[in-house]
């Protein structure tokens, strides 16, 4: 018998005497919503991870991004990024780039998370990983209250990267230290509805 058939048969034998009727999954947790100003909550939670945070109007967006980029000179700006910036859309030698600027699919207020689904303006996954600085731009209406609302909006078919603060580790005495393999600086910019 193949390994596949043997494992499936072992599963069936193991469950031979089990009551296999479907259990009710309580979904009450989905009705829990972050209350109040979720953009303010998002800001608070992003900052808690020691990421930097800025709000701007559509008109100030370019200057806000430039401020976040600071002295970075080699910059990646993926195809489909909504404003004109001085950068290249992709490269082979990602490690030689200082910073990357992307949009995101959404933001999660209660956890201070940004989710990239690598659509237009976000680039392939490695783009927002290898450079040491990541500037991520979201619009106010992209921010949802909690994880349940985020999962409901996302398309499983697309690759996703959930980012909560800069790269970090708790591997040394269980204290969080920022800066291992991913970007060591994360700047989140939220654009107010014009």
């Amino acid at each position, binding site marked *: 018998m193949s390994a596949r058939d043997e494992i499936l048969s072992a599963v069936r034998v193991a469950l031979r005497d089990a009551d*296999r009727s479907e259990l009710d999954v309580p979904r009450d947790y989905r009705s829990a919503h972050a209350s109040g100003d979720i953009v303010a909550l998002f800001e608070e939670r992003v900052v808690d991870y020691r990421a930097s945070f800025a709000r701007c109007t559509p008109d100030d967006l370019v200057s806000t991004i430039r401020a976040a980029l600071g002295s970075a000179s080699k910059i990646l700006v993926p195809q489909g990024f909504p404003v004109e910036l001085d950068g290249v859309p992709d490269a082979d030698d990602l490690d030689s780039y200082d910073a990357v600027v992307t949009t995101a699919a959404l933001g999660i207020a209660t956890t201070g998370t940004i989710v990239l689904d690598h659509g237009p303006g976000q680039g392939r996954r490695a783009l927002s990983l290898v450079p040491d600085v990541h500037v991520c731009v979201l619009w106010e209406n992209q921010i949802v209250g909690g994880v349940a609302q985020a999962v409901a909006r996302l398309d499983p078919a697309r*690759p996703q990267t959930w980012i909560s603060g800069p790269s970090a580790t708790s591997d040394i005495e*269980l204290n969080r230290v920022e800066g291992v393999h991913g970007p060591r600086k994360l700047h989140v910019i939220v654009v107010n509805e014009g």
Partner: protein
Amino acid sequence: MSATFVGMPAFPVAAREALADSQLRRNLEHATHTIRAKRAAVVGEVDEWEELRLAGAAIKDNTLLHLDEYLLQLEESLQARGVTVHWARDAREACDVVARIAQTHGVDEIVKVKSMVTQEIGLNEALAAQGIVAWETDLAELIVQLGDDLPSHILVPAIHRNRAEIREIFRRRMAAAGRPAPENLSDEPAELAAAARLHLREKFLRAKMAVSGANFAVAESGTLVVVESEGNGRMCLTLPEVLVSVVGIEKVVPTFADLDVFLQLLPRSSTGERMNPYTSTWTGIAPGDGPQEMHVVLLDNGRTRALADDVGRQALRCIRCSACLNVCPVYERTGGHAYGSVYPGPIGAILNPLLKGVGVDEQTDSLPYASSLCGACFDACPVRIDIPEVLVHLRTKVVDAHREGPPKAEAVAMKSASWVLSDARRLGFAERGLGVASKVLDRVGRRVLPGGRRALGRLPWPGSLWTNARDVPAPPAESFRAWWRKGGRP
């Protein structure tokens, strides 16, 4: 990593060594207390925590009870997205699959995402035997690998090491594995992390093949999920050309929507954060983005054995958060190595016997007894695994497995106790014996307990098991029963 858990002694013996290591005790106490406080704070923020636990347990139970159907669905979804699916009955089969894929591509080194299941199957050692080097890229795994050490925690395999020890390992061992540690490396965690970043970056950039596990595998969509902190997982999942993911068959969840439970439960229970820094999800091959060849190895390795145990089955809900380790009074004192497995702590004390079966080796049989049954693990478990219940159940299985053959002293004692305690007259008689002993011991016992009762000091074996570190009150001259029978009334 050449160190191995094979041949470890039974828990009480292994624990003795750990208990005598005061540095280890301090490292563990510091780490477990830090993470406990963080977990308590972020769990306390979520009003619907109990609803999430109930939902998590129910989703996992439903999946396990229909595991054959969900596995077939997962296989189909993965194949539809260009992923090659392999099945492995045991560790050897799984390791062979991975080695074969590496050999097909002429690869002699791979990078690894931290994964419990590849530790469980001894993948690194199996690949090394085929001339393939596996580089661990998680910081703690790197510390363990460079230190030729063994993991002692599910989340933080190097939890037994403090910063000074880590600096020493980096200074001595990094050079032989690639880029050496910087000169003047201090023991500041940020500097240590930066040294790991530099050391591993060249490996990420040149790697052709990566091996990962998966925290979750979604049957409906074929999505795999890796939850991590450092970004080493993202590196491995996106930079190489070939990705092999070894996935235990219990990792399947029915739908993508079900992740809304686990992506809340796992980070808060695990690192004590609202969300871990990085979570990657991928659904087969994404053209132009990441590895263009993908394999998934679905592994049994004892899971169907655990599934067949109607009480123990719940252990397969485990999402490897390690909250139970962090709150366990036993783990806090002994650390993980004493459990002789990559799965230590309360979950290890049930998972190892369930995966391997009891009555085969003394080490595995000792694990269900490595608990005071205090219940802190159940309260911390995000998927409500009743670990104390399973521990007691497995103790019964261990005893039953040894009912044939010559009885141990313990079995004789329990049978005698059962005989005495099945009949009040027998118990009364035994108590009268204690009363007589009391009169003798009263003259021997030199210590007086606060409150005036006489105490016994060190007794010969088996009493020494108690009295090596604890006094014991001398038995009373008269039992309660005897007093009552005399017409004693308050």
